[in-house]
C-alpha cells in the first residue's frame, strides 16, 4: 500500500481495502525499520494514530477529501502546536511552539495524518542535510551519499516510502535539489503562493514552502491544500487558487520551451547534461518547441544570493538569544555572556558563517557595496526571466550540476557546497515557481529536470510534469531495499 498514489489510496480507504489506521501503522513500521536513514527528527506516533482514527470516522461519514487519512510528514521548520519544532538546530532542541504554522493547520483541516517532523539542514542552511544538529540524512538510492538539502529528510522519506508525501521549503533550491537527488517530484511555488506564517524564517524574501511527492499528481493534491492567501503573512498573495488536478491531462502540444545556454555550460557534469537533453527530447516528441535562450545575469545569482540571504538571516536569527526560548548556556555570568555563549553553543558552523556574512554585508560602510548591489543584481535577474518568459512558456534545465555527492565530500568546502545550488538560486531571487522532475539516472543516482514557469503558473508546471510522467516511468523507480 505504500507505493500507491494519493488518488489510489483515497479510493482504497473508501473501498474499505484498508483503514487509515492500518495505512498509518504500516508507514510507522517502515519509519522504524529504516531509522538508519535518519529522515525523522520526531516521529509523532500517537498523534498520527489519533489523526488516522479521526480520518477513518470521517471517511465512514462520507468525507470525500483526497488527503483525509493520508500519512504525510512535515519538515521540522514548520511550527506544530504542542510538538517539538527544532529547525534542525540545537538552539531549538527544547522548543515546543504554542501554535501551528498556517500550512500545518491547512493540512490538518484537510484530514492528513501527520507521521512526524523531518530532518533538515540547520535553519534550512545547507545543500546536503549535513548541517543538521540531528546528523546527516542518508540518500536511499546510495546510503553513503547525501540526499541534498535543506529538505533532505523530506526527500529521502518520500523516496524511501516512509511517507506518502511531505512538505518542504525552498530558499535557494531546498525543495528542488533534494528532490532531484532522491528521484522525487518537488515544487517550489511562486513567492507568496504558500503562507510563511509559522515557517521558521531563514531568508524571508526568498523562503517558500511547497510539496514534495512521488508524482506531479500527488504534488498537485498536496499543493492544493497548502496554497492560498493568509492574512497573517503580509507577503502572501490574495489571488484565487486554481484546481491543480484539473489541468494535469491537458495536452502540451505547441509548448514553447526555452533552454538557457548558461545552464548547459562549464560545471555541468556530462552524464547529467545528457539526461537533461534526453528529457527535453522527450518533450519535443510530445509536440513541444525548443528554443535556445540566453540569460546573461544568471552567473551573478550565487554571489547576490549569498549577500541577500545571509543579510536577512542575520536579523531573522537574532531572536535566538537565550532569553525567552530555545537553548540557553549554563550559568551565564552577565548579559553579554548569556548572548555570546547561548548563540555560540546553540548554533552550528554554517549558521554562524551565514550570520557573520550577513552582519558584515549590512554594516555601515559596506551596505551599499554589498546589500544594495545584490538587490540591483536581483532586479537584473528578474528582468532576464521576464524577458525570457515573454518569449517561451517555460524554461528547462538541470536542477543540479551533478548527482548526489558523498556524505562528507563537500562539507569542508562551503564554496563548492554553495555551487551545488547554481541552477536553482536565481529562481528564488526572481520569486518564480519551479519544479524538479525525475528524469533518469547517472552513476545509479537520480537526476532531476528543472521546469521554471511564470508567476502563478503552478497549474501549468504540474501539467507539464504530469505529461512527462505519463510518457516515462523515472518517477516510479524505487530505491533498492525500499520496495
Amino acid at each position, binding site marked *: 500500500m505504500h507505493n500507491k498514489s494519493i488518488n489510489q489510496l483515497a479510493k482504497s480507504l473508501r473501498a474499505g481495502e484498508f483503514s487509515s489506521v492500518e495505512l498509518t501503522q504500516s508507514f510507522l513500521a517502515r519509519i522504524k525499520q529504516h531509522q538508519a536513514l535518519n529522515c525523522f527528527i520526531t516521529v509523532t506516533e500517537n498523534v498520527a494514530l489519533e489523526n488516522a482514527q479521526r480520518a477513518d470516522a470521517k471517511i465512514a461519514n462520507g468525507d470525500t477529501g483526497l488527503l483525509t487519512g493520508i500519512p504525510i510528514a512535515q519538515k521540522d521548520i*514548520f*511550527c506544530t502546536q504542542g510538538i517539538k*519544532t527544532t*529547525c534542525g538546530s540545537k538552539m*531549538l532542541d527544547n*522548543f515546543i*511552539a*504554542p*501554535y501551528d*504554522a498556517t500550512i500545518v493547520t491547512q493540512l490538518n483541516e484537510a484530514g492528513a495524518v501527520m507521521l512526524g517532523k523531518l530532518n533538515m539542514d540547520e535553519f534550512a542552511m545547507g545543500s546536503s542535510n549535513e548541517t543538521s544538529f540531528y546528523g546527516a540524512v542518508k540518500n536511499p538510492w546510495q546510503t553513503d551519499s547525501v540526499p541534498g538539502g535543506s529538505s533532505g529528510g523530506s526527500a529521502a522519506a518520500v523516496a524511501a516510502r516512509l511517507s506518502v508525501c511531505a512538505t518542504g521549503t525552498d530558499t535557494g533550491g531546498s525543495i528542488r535539489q533534494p528532490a532531484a537527488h532522491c528521484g522525487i517530484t518537488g515544487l517550489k511555488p511562486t513567492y507568496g503562493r504558500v503562507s*510563511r*506564517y*509559522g*515557517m*521558521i*524564517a531563514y*531568508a*524571508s*524574501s526568498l523562503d517558500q514552502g511547497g510539496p514534495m511527492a512521488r508524482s506531479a499528481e500527488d504534488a498537485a493534491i498536496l499543493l492544493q491544500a497548502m496554497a492560498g492567501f493568509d*492574512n*497573517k*503573512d*503580509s*507577503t502572501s498573495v490574495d489571488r484565487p487558487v486554481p484546481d491543480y488536478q484539473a489541468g494535469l491531462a491537458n495536452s502540451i502540444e505547441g509548448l514553447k520551451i526555452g533552454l538557457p545556454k548558461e545552464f548547459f555550460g562549464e560545471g555541468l557534469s556530462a552524464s547529467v547534461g545528457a539526461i537533461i537533453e534526453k528529457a527535453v527530447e522527450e518533450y519535443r516528441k510530445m509536440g513541444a518547441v525548443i528554443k535556445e535562450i540566453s540569460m546573461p545575469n544568471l552567473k551573478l545569482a550565487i554571489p547576490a544570493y549569498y549577500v541577500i540571504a545571509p*543579510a*536577512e538571516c*542575520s*536579523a531573522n*536569527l*537574532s*531572536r*535566538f*538569544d537565550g*532569553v*525567552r*526560548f*530555545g537553548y540557553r548556556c549554563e550559568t551565564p555570568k552577565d*548579559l553579554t555572556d548569556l*548572548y555570546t555563549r547561548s548563540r555560540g553553543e546553540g548554533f552550528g558552523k554554517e549558521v554562524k558563517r551565514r550570520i557573520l556574512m550577513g*552582519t558584515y554585508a*549590512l*554594516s*555601515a560602510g559596506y*551596505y551599499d557595496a554589498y*546589500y544594495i548591489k545584490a538587490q540591483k543584481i536581483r532586479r537584473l535577474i528578474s528582468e532576464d526571466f521576464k524577458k525570457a518568459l515573454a518569449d517561451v512558456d517555460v524554461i528547462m534545465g538541470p536542477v543540479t550540476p551533478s548527482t548526489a555527492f558523498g556524505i562528507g565530500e563537500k562539507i569542508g568546502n562551503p564554496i563548492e557546497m554553495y555551487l551545488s545550488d547554481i541552477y536553482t538560486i536565481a529562481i528564488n531571487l526572481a520569486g518564480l515557481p519551479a519544479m524538479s522532475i525525475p528524469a533518469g539516472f547517472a552513476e545509479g543516482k537520480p537526476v532531476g529536470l528543472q521546469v521554471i514557469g511564470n508567476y502563478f503558473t503552478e497549474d501549468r508546471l504540474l501539467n507539464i510534469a504530469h505529461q512527462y510522467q505519463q510518457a516515462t516511468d523515472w518517477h516510479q523507480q524505487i530505491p533498492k531495499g525500499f520496495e
Partner: protein
Amino acid sequence: METSQEHEHPQWEVVIGLEIHAQLATKSKIFSGAATAYGASPNTQACAVDLGLPGVLPVLNEEAVRMAVKFGMAIEAEIAPYSVFARKNYFYPDLPKGYQISQFELPIVGNGHMDINVDGSSKRVGITRAHLEEDAGKSLHEDFHGLTGIDLNRAGTPLLEIVSEPDMRSAKEAVAYMRKLHNLVRWIGICDGNMQEGSFRCDANVSVRPRGQQAFGTRAEIKNINSFKFVEKAINHEVDRQIQLIESGGKIVQETRLYDSVKDETRSMRSKEEANDYRYFPDPDLLPVSVSDEFKAHIKALLPELPDTRKLRFNEQYQLDTENADILTASRSLADYFETLVKESSCEAKMCANWMTGDLIAALNKANLEITESPITSQRLAGLLQRINDNTISGKIAKQVFEGMWHSTATADEIITEKGLKQITDTGAIEAVIDQIIADNSKQVEQYRDGNEKVFAFFVGQVMKAMQGKANPGEVNKILKTKLK
C-alpha cells in the same frame, strides 16, 4: 554647579532639535492583534508575534498608518506615497526579535512645520520627518534579586517618532514646541499624551555655537525626558555644561546622555564610538506602505479644526485677547467647553472666557484635574453665568455658588434657592437698610460730607454685611450716593 534659570549667554547661541515619541492611541499593537492598554500585569498583553517566537510574522495595523497620515496633514507635511519599514538591529533583552521594526530611508511623513509663540513673538519650527515604529518592552531591574525581569506588554506598541529641525534656540522654545505638539496629537486624537505612562516622551539634541557662526557645534543627545519641566531643566543644564566645558578649553564629544531629574544633571550613556551600528535594511516581512490620494483626501475630511485655526477664530468671532485665546485652545476639550458655555449661557464670550481662565482653571489646577474631568460641566457653569447675567446674583455671590457646585451635583439655581442667595434688587428694602445705617453712623456721614470720599466704601461694606452680600451692588451705590448728599 550653578544653573541660571534664564540662560543669557551673550556669546553663545543654543541650537536644539527634538525627537518626540508619541504613542499612537490604537486599540491593538502595530504588528499584532494584542491589546495596547496600559497597566496590565506583566506579559499578559504580549502574543506570539510580540514575543518574537520563531515563525511569526508582522501584519501592519492600518489604524496606525491612518493616524500617522492624520498627523502629517495637521502639520502640512508631505505624505510619502510609498514608505518602507526597516529593521533596526540591536540586542537587548526587552527587544524580542533582536531588531526593532521602524522606518529609516523612506518615512511616511516628511517635511512639515509648526509655529510656536515665545514671549510674544512667533516662530516656525521645521519638522524633518515623522515615522512609524514599534516600541520595545520594559526591563524591570528591581524585585528580582540581581536578575532582570522582562515585561513585553509594551513591545509592539505603535509609536510615531517626530523629528524636528535644529530650529530652536532656547529651552523655552523647545518647551513651547513640545507643548504645542503635545496639544496637537491629543487634539487630532492620535495620542493620549499621558507623559507619566510614557505615551509622549522626548529626546533632545543640544549644541552650542559662538553667535554669528554658521556651522553647528558638536551635539549631545539627551535621552528619554518625560516632562515639560525636565525638558527645560535638562536642556539648560546641558547648555551650561557645554559652555563651561568649551570655555575652560575642553571639547564636546558627540554622545548620548541621560538626564537625572533627581540630581538635575545629565551624564554620559555612550559615546559615538560606542554607538551601535544598527544595520538598517528593509524588512522583507512587510510590504511597502502606499498612501493614495483618495486615502489622503479621506483623512483630510476627518481632520478637526486645528488649534491655530481655532485660536484665530476665537480672536475674531469672540473678540478674545491673545492670552485668553491661547489658554482656551490649549486643548481641544477646553476649546469645546468654552464654545458650549457661550452657546448654552448666551452670555458674553468675554465673561465666559474670564470665568474659565479664572475660577474654573484655577480650581482644576488645584485639584489636579483635566477639563474633561471637571466636576462642573459646561452646561452647569452656563446655568451659573445666566444668573449673573440676569442679576439674580452678584459676581461675588456667584463665586460662593461655584464653590457649592464644585462639591455637589446641584445646579446653580438649586444652590441659590437652597442657601437663599438671591440678590435683593428691591430698592425699598435696600433703602430701609441704608436709612438705618446712616442713622447709626453719624460720625462717618459727617466725614463723608466733609469730603472724605473713602468713607463711601465703609457704607457699602456695612450695607452688604447687613444684607449678607445679597444686595445688588449697583443699586446700593446709587441709593447711598443720593442719601448721603
